[in-house]
């Protein structure tokens, strides 16, 4: 059966993908496609792209609200600007900023003026804050623990000068995720903030049945075949016989709060009292400096109190300050920490306690922990010596 002969709805199984470059790319981009030979940065937010053809495209990077959430109304205004001062096109970056494209520096500066009037900052690139990536959390997400968009707003308010004009040692990007799924992009970034429960979840007995086989089957199926048991990496979720009933039980001592159960079943609940965020530092994805790596936990828990999130903001600002004052030019936070050593970094930050969960875990929790990196153990010993 060809797509054409199908019922129009069934034809939906053959997706329409936006794959036609001719159709979607601005003409001026198509003309110079693959021919860019140089670029110049004109202050924060503006790049001049120089083509072998002699053409130029200027991009003006506009900071978007958290989670890149924008109204159709505002977007139309940007479209108007792109038409009047630009070349009739914008693009959205990886990180959810909006670039307005134009063909002269003059126009680029005017665009900057216009969007600033609208209340949007122009900035990023080079040695600055490039932006804060936030997942959707309370805006739409069922598994969210804390609300990343409002945390991002608080951080953006505090760090806006670093986006717009103040220099940092190198690129700074922050990922804010509402729960351990880390949809803002994982932890391999300068600063990652991740919502977490702080205490093992509770099973809501009224609803857990929906995530399990019917009671009779449950009593017969081998435990290892139960989906939720499979999902839990530590064996904290296990079947227990209570009289003639078989129940899913959560052994708090084994739980590591990874949230995989919750991701797969809405019957896991938590108490807002215990909820908080972990702050990780020193990750990156780019191959610059000493290469890509995962961030480390700096602070394993802080409360997340809307709308100001003062504790989180204070720690992030402080870390940025320590880095700003001590790093070499061009040195990402990760490379800076690498150079001075983790111990020294902690000393600089003034943190007396460190999160070394791995070593504290009791024997029984080890199953899950095998994957955890010990990193530069001996290197650090040396750093200390």
């Amino acid at each position, binding site marked *: 059966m060809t797509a054409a002969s199908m019922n129009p*709805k069934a034809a*939906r*199984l053959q*997706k*329409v*993908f*936006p*794959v036609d470059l001719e159709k*979607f*790319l601005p003409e001026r*981009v198509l003309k110079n496609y693959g021919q*860019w030979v*140089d670029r110049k940065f004109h202050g924060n937010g503006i790049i001049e792209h*120089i083509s072998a053809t002699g053409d130029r495209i200027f*991009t003006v990077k506009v900071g978007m*609200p958290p989670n*890149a*959430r*924008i*109204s*159709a*109304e505002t977007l*139309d205004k940007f*479209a108007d600007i792109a038409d009047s001062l630009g070349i009739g*096109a*914008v693009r959205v*970056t*990886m990180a*959810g900023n*909006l670039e307005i494209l134009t063909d002269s520096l003059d126009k680029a500066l005017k665009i900057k003026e216009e969007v600033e009037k609208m209340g949007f900052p122009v900035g990023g690139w080079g040695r600055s804050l490039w932006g804060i*990536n936030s997942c959707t*959390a*309370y805006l*739409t*997400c069922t598994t*969210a623990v804390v*609300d990343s968009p*409002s945390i991002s*707003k*608080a951080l*953006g308010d505090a760090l806006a000068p670093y986006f717009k004009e103040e220099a940092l040692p190198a690129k700074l990007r922050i990922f804010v995720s*509402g729960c351990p799924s*880390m949809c*803002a992009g994982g*932890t*391999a970034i300068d600063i990652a903030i991740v919502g977490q429960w702080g205490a093992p979840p509770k099973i809501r007995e009224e609803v857990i049945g929906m995530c399990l086989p019917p009671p009779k089957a449950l009593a017969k199926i081998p435990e290892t075949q139960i989906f939720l048991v499979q*999902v839990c*990496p530590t064996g904290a979720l296990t079947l227990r016989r209570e009289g003639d009933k078989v129940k899913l039980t959560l052994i708090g001592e084994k739980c590591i709060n*990874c949230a995989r159960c919750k991701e797969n079943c809405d019957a896991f*609940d938590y108490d*807002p009292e215990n909820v908080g965020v972990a702050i990780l530092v020193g990750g990156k*994805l*780019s*191959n*610059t*400096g000493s*290469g890509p790596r995962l961030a480390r936990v700096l602070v394993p828990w802080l409360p997340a109190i*809307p*709308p100001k999130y003062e504790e989180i903001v204070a720690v992030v600002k402080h870390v940025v300050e320590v880095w700003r004052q001590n790093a070499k030019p*061009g040195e990402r936070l990760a490379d800076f920490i690498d150079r001075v050593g983790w111990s020294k970094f902690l000393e600089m930050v003034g943190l007396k306690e460190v999160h070394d969960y791995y070593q504290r875990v009791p024997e029984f929790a080890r199953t899950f922990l095998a994957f955890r990196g010990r990193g530069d153990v001996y290197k650090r010993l040396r750093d200390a010596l």
Partner: protein
Amino acid sequence: MSAPANLPPKEELLNRAEEILKQLEGGPWPSHVSELRKTRYPLHVYGVGLVARKSPWGPAAVKVEFLNTGVLSRWARDWVPGGGSEVHFRVFHTPGKFLRTDFLRKITKISRELGVGLIELVGQTGALVLNLTPETAEAMVDALREIGTDVGGSGDAIRALNACVGPALCEFALYDTLKWYAEFYKDKRVNDNIVTPSYPYKFKVKFSGCPLDCARAQRGDIGFIGVWEGAPEVDQELLGKKIEAGEVDPEKLAANCPSGAITWDKEKKELRIDGTRCKKSMHCIRAAFPAIKPGKKRKVAVVVGGGSKGRFGPKLGWFIGYLEPDQVKDAIDLTFKVIGPWEAEAQPKYRLGDYIMHLGLDKFIEKAGIKLEGMPVSTAKMPDEVPYAVLPKEVRERFLSFAQQLKGRV
């Protein structure tokens, strides 16, 4: 989720919600709340969540025919006064995420008329996200297909592809990321596995034009990263000019190369780069472009197994070898080779990286039948420090034969 304890009564709850929302509209950074106000998004639900410090949303089940991925729907929890509902589509973004104004206006029109006038410009995987109401879901799919895109990308399926802007704007692009993006989407197998979620877990594909990795290929289940072989290319003449002009300090260039590959010959005024040592940090290139450029022999490095968590926690990708910039078809075949054993054998909710950790990368490569140029000799993520192990006979034989080979030589 159950109602949090100590929730104030309805009226007060809504008032406090509004108060918090207002506070989120001040300050220098653009406010998502201000934007939400301009839409039909049920803002009170969000506000109540902030007061309760719990997500106000629970799962709902809006079904759109023949749409198994890309649609997510929620009901406000029962403790949210007035209730509310929310549906959104994950929509395939344009190549390079360029939006010509005519196309952009089509999107805002669809959003306003069939949605709630609210758009997430790009999700962290790379989708364009449109909020809507259940009633108009079917119509919105049709409208999107009309303008040349579609809905998809959630569940245990291939997710929205993501590529950096690459040759469309960037002088560093070492292969055509947007062409690869398009070719992948055109492949029938990709289509089928976007449509129907049947993998052990999600699968993400990312394309970065160079080692700066703007598309975060390092965290993809499979990632393609443009690189070159050997040393960066140095235009000594142009470099000389830059040095004279004070734009570039050759001593610093050498000192800051993280692999110590650069030497500056003061006498001959020549910068030499040892290609065998260069680790592709892009440092010299960024500092002296275009006098220093990526080398001419371009490759696409393949990394597999990255991800934010999965069963065994955060991981970056493992490098498994190179393709040529024109081998996009082979890249697609490779992707399905990689998927093969994982799809067949992995436990549910093991990301590809978890499966590889479990199996061992070398075993995985063998199973998947992968053969690539530059495949690292050591495919182990972690060499062992423990000198004892239970070893199958075949393994022992292999090491023995290595030693026996040497016996002749030394």
